């Protein structure tokens, strides 16, 4: 720690320098990071709200493992849909990371193609979420109550996954726009493909949030 704060550490030098504190970070990327920081607080507040109501209701909390189970080919498998959604989102993060790599390698076509794949995976995630919502609504889960236990189960489920789903949907649109622009060669002139990395930051963040939702809402 002492080393980190000493006068000649890179940390102190960067902060004490003129013009920019984040060396080599473009305006867009800096802004995206700061936005994600703010968004972290939004999701954390949602999850804190969820934690508090879950801990303070006297009704029993439904067993997520059961509620989200599917019967496939006669087998009753707990949480299987959620597991698949998790894998899809992780896969999309992987393709996104490769798109960033292609962008920096100036492989325009591949970058755009990988981004389209990412968007497709994202869209299928949203599709599965829609399926999950439909299933739960058919089973009688509503924001104000459900047949399995505490009413807040439904409220927080729709609120938290809904908000995350909105983020994914927005991300899909964002990725599509950027990918299209790359295809059309909009960034060719400046030769700077950092936009892919910025879009990637957002996309990975959405994945990151899902990691927490998966752990706290579905597994806990």
């Amino acid at each position, binding site marked *: 720690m002492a080393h980190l704060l000493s006068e000649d550490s890179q940390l102190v030098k960067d902060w004490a320098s003129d013009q920019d504190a984040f060396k080599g970070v473009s305006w867009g990327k800096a802004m995206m990071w700061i936005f994600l920081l703010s968004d972290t607080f939004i999701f954390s507040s949602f999850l*804190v709200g969820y934690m508090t109501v879950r801990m303070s209701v006297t009704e029993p909390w439904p067993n997520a493992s059961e509620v989200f189970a599917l019967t496939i080919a006669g087998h009753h498998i707990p949480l299987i849909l959620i597991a698949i959604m998790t894998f899809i989102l992780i896969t999309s993060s*992987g393709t996104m990371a490769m798109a960033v790599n292609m962008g920096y*390698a100036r492989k325009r076509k591949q970058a755009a193609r990988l981004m389209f794949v990412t968007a497709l995976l994202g869209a299928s995630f949203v599709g599965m979420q829609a399926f999950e919502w439909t299933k739960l609504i058919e089973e009688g889960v509503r924001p104000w109550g459900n047949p399995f236990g505490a009413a807040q189960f439904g409220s927080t489920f729709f609120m938290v996954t809904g908000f995350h789903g909105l983020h994914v949907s927005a991300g899909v649109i964002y990725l599509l726009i950027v990918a299209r622009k790359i295809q059309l060669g909009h960034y060719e002139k400046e030769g700077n493909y950092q936009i892919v*990395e910025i879009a990637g930051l957002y996309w990975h963040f959405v994945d990151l949030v899902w990691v927490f939702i998966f752990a706290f809402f579905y597994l*806990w």
Partner: protein
Amino acid sequence: MSTSNALGQESQEHNTQEHPIGLYLKIWVLLFVLSTLSYMVDYMQLQGYLRWTLIIIFMLLKAGLIVAVFMHMMWERLALIYAILLPPLCLLVLIGLMAIEADYTILMRYDFFGR
């Protein structure tokens, strides 16, 4: 973006985040494994502290990998890393106190409402 450039962003040395594809693939596989493990926690019906510890460990490992590698945090300069990672710490105070508060509420409810 274009508007900002119109006003002239000073040229800066962009430290491009170029890393070998192989690394991404490795992380990808690792994330798959971790997700499977955390799924297995539920599938095996582990309960109690063991369950919660495992869930948290796998969650933090996954989150760490995504932030560090996919979001390139480990290659960023310390100035950015600290600026992004320190502020969420104050959320820990909120989380901790709200856990205590929720606990207090449920105790009151059991004590006085008799449910």
